[in-house]
């Protein structure tokens, strides 16, 4: 099987305030780019093996998640693949972390992307049920979308 296209995976829970920011950003990025390229958008609530499976069959993958790094809420950061595990939902307490899941996929012959990037948006409220972002996080969404659009466009240009 040959891997094609790009998948953008929004992680988190839309019902838990800022935890859903990755999902909103992923959807907005896809909205901007889908007419120009082969782009699939997916929502995922749990990391580990599920996250690896969500990338299967794609050439490139972008993961957007809330993070709890101690930075000011709304801070946007791009992670190196070796820092995968530092965003909030990319780990699954019920199986494993993403890096192990990725190696498992390779071992099992799952077609996985050559390029993966991780984006984190610092959350403020993440354990309160609600469908609204806090002000800082809501304000960070357009900037995060621009950064990720630029990154995907750069990948596509280099391809």
């Amino acid at each position: 099987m040959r891997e094609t296209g790009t998948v953008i995976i929004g992680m988190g829970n839309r019902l838990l305030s800022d935890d859903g920011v990755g999902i909103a950003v992923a959807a907005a990025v896809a909205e901007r780019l889908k007419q120009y390229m082969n782009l699939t958008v997916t929502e995922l609530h749990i990391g580990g093996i599920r996250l690896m499976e969500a990338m299967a069959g794609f050439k490139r993958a972008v993961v957007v998640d809330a993070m709890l790094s101690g930075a000011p809420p709304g801070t946007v950061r791009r992670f190196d693949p070796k820092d995968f595990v530092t965003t909030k939902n990319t780990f699954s307490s019920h199986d494993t972390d993403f890096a192990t899941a990725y190696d498992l996929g390779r071992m099992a012959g799952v077609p996985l992307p050559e390029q993966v990037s991780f984006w984190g948006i610092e959350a403020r409220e993440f354990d309160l049920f609600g469908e609204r972002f806090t002000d800082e996080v809501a304000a960070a969404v357009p900037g995060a979308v621009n950064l990720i659009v630029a990154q995907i466009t750069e990948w596509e240009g280099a391809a």
Partner: protein
Amino acid sequence: MARITIDPITRLEGHGRIDIFLNDQGMVENTFFQIPELRGFEQFCVGRMAEEMPVITNRICGVCPEAHHLAATKALDAVFGAEPTGAAKKLRELLYMAFFVTDHTTHFYALGGPDFIVGPDAPPAERNILGVARKVGLEVAGEVIACRKRNHEIITFLGGKSIHPVAGVPGGWSRAITSVERTQIEDIARRNIEFAIFSLSIFERIVLKNPLYLDLVTSDVYLHRTYSMGTVDAGNRANFYDGMIRVVDPEGAEFIKYNPSEYREHIAERVEAWTYLKYPYLKKVGWKGLTDGIGSGIYTATPLSRLNVSEGMATSLANAEYQRMYETFGCKKITAARYEPIHHRLATHWARLIELLYSSERMLELALDPEITSPETRNIPDPARFVGEGVGSVEAPRGTLTHHYVTDERGVLTKVNMIVGTTNNYAPISMSIKRAAEKLITGNAPDESILNRVEMAFRLYDPCLSCATHFLPGKMPLTVSIRDSQGGLLREMRRKG
């Protein structure tokens, strides 16, 4: 009193950690497994239409959306007074069996199994699913992924959506299956049975045939003689989708059997100052603190407890494995089909594999049932039968799951209550952690052993913290600090994420 803290959430002070308190003699006084809660769930739900619950609650937890979806849908059947059709019940159970197969498979190979297959004292970097594959054979990695994939496909088309099912409606199921799909499900169920047998053979070969590991499983490290809870069918055999709740006492005598809608008559919740989470206990026995025995109302709701309450398994291959497990533990038969309960908590891993086989066999039975392709998948609710209150209950992989809704006459929610699988086991988890701490903390055990034995204690329950709680950012770093009775730091152990 000294305090030892194992804090897996480094950046969330005061949330989700294990506290081990030592007395002045340096002995373990008590341990508490503190986990945070998600706030505002009831407020979030109240004022919404009850029909939204199956698609709201399936987002509470990323691990078992299927369990919440079905418990919510069953609660709606009761709220609307709409009994589902036979085909609807079978379709729901079929989806649920596919879910159990993926969930139990993942737990065994990725989380629970590594302790035994790679070894309880192996370095953490090897004690994972990759280590399992290296020990058992690399092809097992492909088998696990393939098992997940084929069952996720069934869940997606039966549930109407990947990951968060949407097909449950009061009185039924919104999607019938074609005969082509039925054939595909039958084929997948057969492959699941083979895979479950293979998994049990690995357990036999690597764990049961190794005296060291067998000793660990049958040792009293995590032995707690509590009551056992599980859902049973009309023949008192385990069923995960529907039935009566049966509780047996530590000796195995039936203590109570009740309809899930009567849960409040039988289960009370103990509130303690140090944690948000409540400890459920058997009302008629009473709360005696974190202690086991027939006089303590603490009960367990896990794969092992489900087998403890069951008069054998309802499918033949799983029943043979069930008998083998109890006989290995030397349990005497107390009824024609049931044995004395097993209280060795590490046997939960074995019980989970027996449930994996049962779920696979049950899936095949349902796929072969002529009614499964019936287009009659729903009874439309009749307004004259509207009730306005309902309880829905299923056995989630991690324990009995109960949803309880009350609505006004328009079907708008006025009250929501849930007891999730892990919550049932909050007290037993705390006791197992205490036992591990007692055996190890005061000795000269190496850091890694302490960290892992404490982790093993909660890993066997596979606590689903994302249900009642918000879960861990990043990997799970652990810090254990041992302090003297003056609070001075004696020793600190850290496992980085």
